[in-house]
């Protein structure tokens, strides 16, 4: 098994959709996309954000731009101006996901 941190192979952007956050992750190249397509599952993202994301996580593929889009429900403390969070719009969540270490089978 080898490990790779997501930030080495991808970048991304995140934002808000009500109380849900969206995180788009984009691989730097085709090989990187193969890795995230296989290893960056909705389950792993949900586990990564344990205690932060209180709802389900949905994953969508945009192979055309080497990207995956995740919707994290119940994540922004109510969203909009209801939220007391410093990052009420989830702007820094893409960076938070890039912390993830992916375990790759050799």
């Amino acid at each position, binding site marked *: 098994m080898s490990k790779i941190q997501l930030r080495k192979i991808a970048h991304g*952007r995140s934002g808000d959709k009500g109380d849900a956050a969206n995180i*788009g992750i984009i691989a730097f190249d085709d090989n990187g996309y193969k890795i995230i397509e296989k290893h960056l599952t909705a389950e792993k993202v949900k586990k990564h954000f344990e205690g932060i994301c209180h709802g389900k996580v949905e994953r*969508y593929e945009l192979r055309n731009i080497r990207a995956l889009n995740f919707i994290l429900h119940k994540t922004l403390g109510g969203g909009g101006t209801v939220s007391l969070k410093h990052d009420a719009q989830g702007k820094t969540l893409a960076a938070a996901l890039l912390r993830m270490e992916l375990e790759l089978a050799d």
Partner: protein
Amino acid sequence: MKEKIRIASGQGFWGDLIDAPYHQVTKGEIDYLVMDYLAEVTMSILQKQKNRNPNLGYATDLIDLMKKILPITSKKGIKVITNGGGVNPVACADAIIEAAMGLDIKKLDVAVVLGDGIKDSLDDIIQKGCDLKNMETGEPIITVKDKLLSANVYFGAAPIVEALKKGADIVITGRTTDTGLTLAPMIYEFGWDMKDYDLMAAGTVAGHILECGAQSTGGNFLGDWESIENFAEIGFPIAEAYPNGEVIITKHENTGGKVSFDTIAEQLVYEIGDPKDYITPDCIADFTSIKLEEVGKDRVKVFNVKGKPETEFYKVSCSFHDGYSATGTLTYSWPQALTKAKKADRILRKRLEKLELQFDEIRSEFVGYNATHENLAPELDEDKINEIVLRFSVRAKDRNTVNRFGQEIAPLILTGPPSVTGFAGGRPKPKDVVAYWPALIPKKLVEPKVKILELK
């Protein structure tokens, strides 16, 4: 028919770089300037302003801006499209016309798009069988009707196209989709059939890329962000559109920033849901069909976009008053900055508990440690950290409760852990909490209206 048109984004939100639109109309050739001023929270603020003064309720910054750019747009024939009309497009248009009278401008037709505000006709709409269910909770709007601050339908490109056909030089709308602002001039200039959904989707995708201003030209770019040159003079995006639906995203020469596959890809994934179903009043765009190709320095071709027919509904955005909140901060310095801040947090919570106040939520964050990534933040070596900011927030239905909390922050300076500062600007004041109510309304229940106002 023109063989191409250049549509420039001048504003990603109300509060964006004030001079960006001026640079867009002066630093190179463009045909259209489009500006998005309306975030969801903006509508409720504007509604409050209009309630106090019937001549307000629009993006007032727009008037000074128009004074500055009208002599240029008028000379060059650049048309301006913006949703800065907020909840009062007519007052906005009147103010622009008044501003234009003081300038040397011979002809100026300003169109307004009306009819998106439905707050005053809610009873009628409910009676017609539409209960404006909350898309997230399923509750009917009647449950928050008394607390409602604003209710607006998102119109698409169609009324803007109508305004352009009527000869408008400037189009002022209320709540319109950001994407419609960019799609409309393509439909108008190229005579696109609004049933050609691939073309509708192509213009919609271009609109999505333009709607957040410089966020597609290197701003907030998480890729190789340090490679972005000259942030200080960042160029805002321009969509160079062709009749076949191909669009090249670029920016003016001699501006900062960058347009690349990566900067565009980041904006494409911004705030989207299911990428196959990007729903607007004009079409459903399939973001998984989009192809991007770098075709020159700071030039990315966007093509192959596929679309499907629009739905029978408009989205409605309502806002309602939902209690009060306040936030206070205190800064603790080395040594043991985090330990001190955490201790202060516990003291404050205990004091609030003793006051027996009813809060809906209490939240503390430690800026410098976990305010952004929460429990994903790695343990920190306190000896290496110089300071931590305790950010403490509360929310409650009752204003006095929130106000009482505000009196408990400053005392911590003399009654808690040492080396604390940063308390300036007085007690944190209760702020109105505005909550959102997203809903759908059948298109047949609302009708956009377009009016042309001429220079007097």
